[in-house]
């Protein structure tokens, strides 16, 4: 890896991560729903790609997008299954992953990705390790040191 992480052409980024992202979505949503979610993930990534400031942690970045798309898709799936009258009314607080992304903004990139993927999106450590290009153990360590840092910063017990 070079000293400066330049942003690769979208083509290289897409080819490098498409299989891992599709595998992740297929495990979460099943193969058929995963196809729509796959397209949506990379279209969202494409839209945001021109605003990236560096090319580090692109795997973690695209997994964050995929995780959010998967959450939207499973919400739609359960909404289709449950009639509207059954939905709880007036619960408008932001979902956990949005709050966490905001809180974790100032963490070092790896810790931030590990914290958001673990506690915001409920991904298993093996999956996060794959997303970060490391191991499940390394992901667990990054998440827990990120949480410690957050606690110190926020003065949480």
């Amino acid at each position, binding site marked *: 890896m070079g000293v400066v992480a330049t942003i690769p*052409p*979208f083509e290289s980024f897409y080819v490098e991560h498409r299989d891992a992202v*599709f*595998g992740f979505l297929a495990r979460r949503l099943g193969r058929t729903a995963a196809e729509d979610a796959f397209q949506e993930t*990379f279209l969202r990534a494409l839209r945001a790609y021109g605003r*990236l400031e560096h090319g580090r942690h692109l795997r973690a970045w695209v997994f964050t997008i995929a995780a959010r798309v998967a959450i939207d898709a499973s919400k739609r799936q359960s909404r289709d299954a449950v009639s509207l009258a059954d939905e709880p009314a007036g619960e408008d607080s932001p979902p956990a992953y949005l709050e966490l992304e905001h809180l974790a903004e100032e963490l070092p990139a790896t810790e931030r990705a590990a914290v958001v993927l673990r506690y915001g999106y409920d991904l298993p450590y093996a999956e996060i390790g794959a997303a970060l290009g490391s191991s499940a153990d390394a992901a667990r360590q990054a998440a827990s040191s990120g949480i410690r840092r957050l606690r110190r910063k926020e003065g949480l017990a």
Partner: protein
Amino acid sequence: MKVTAQLDRRFRDAAAAAGDLDVGYDLVETPIGEIFVATTAAGLCRISYDPEPEGLVENLARRIGVRVLRAPRSVDETRRQLDEYFGRRRRDFDLAIDLRVDEGFSRRVLDELAHVPYGEVTTYGELARRAEHPRAARAVGTIMNRNPIPIVLPCHRVVGASGSLTGYGGGLERKEALLRLEGAIL
């Protein structure tokens, strides 16, 4: 889990349709070999005989924007017109051209080059005269050699003062094949 060719193609088509690409490209089959074709929202920006697109893609990403994707649909119109040209059903290309980085003299020369008609040839010196720098024949040669959009900007129609084919970025055989196709040489 491997993405199927079908899903891959579906995404590439959707990306071209969404209009979020800086550059869309594809490889296009022609009788003179496979060529690299790239377009932006403003028009055709690159044709190359180089069959190894990686360096070209990197270069476009640096020059124009990082959102470069192989997206066959984005070059459909160019592909159609090239097919017609090589099938002798088209003499002039009707394509928007995106030459954003070329300025000054090279821009003027390429604009003049675009007006050299199908089936005719001109010389480096004559093109220099038309671009109002009559002594710049050698510079015109360099500009032809670096033509970002060969075939469509017809640098194959520019020959030496003696009538010799002189040179071509894609190799002399290709220059000869194009001039023969157009009936400019026998």
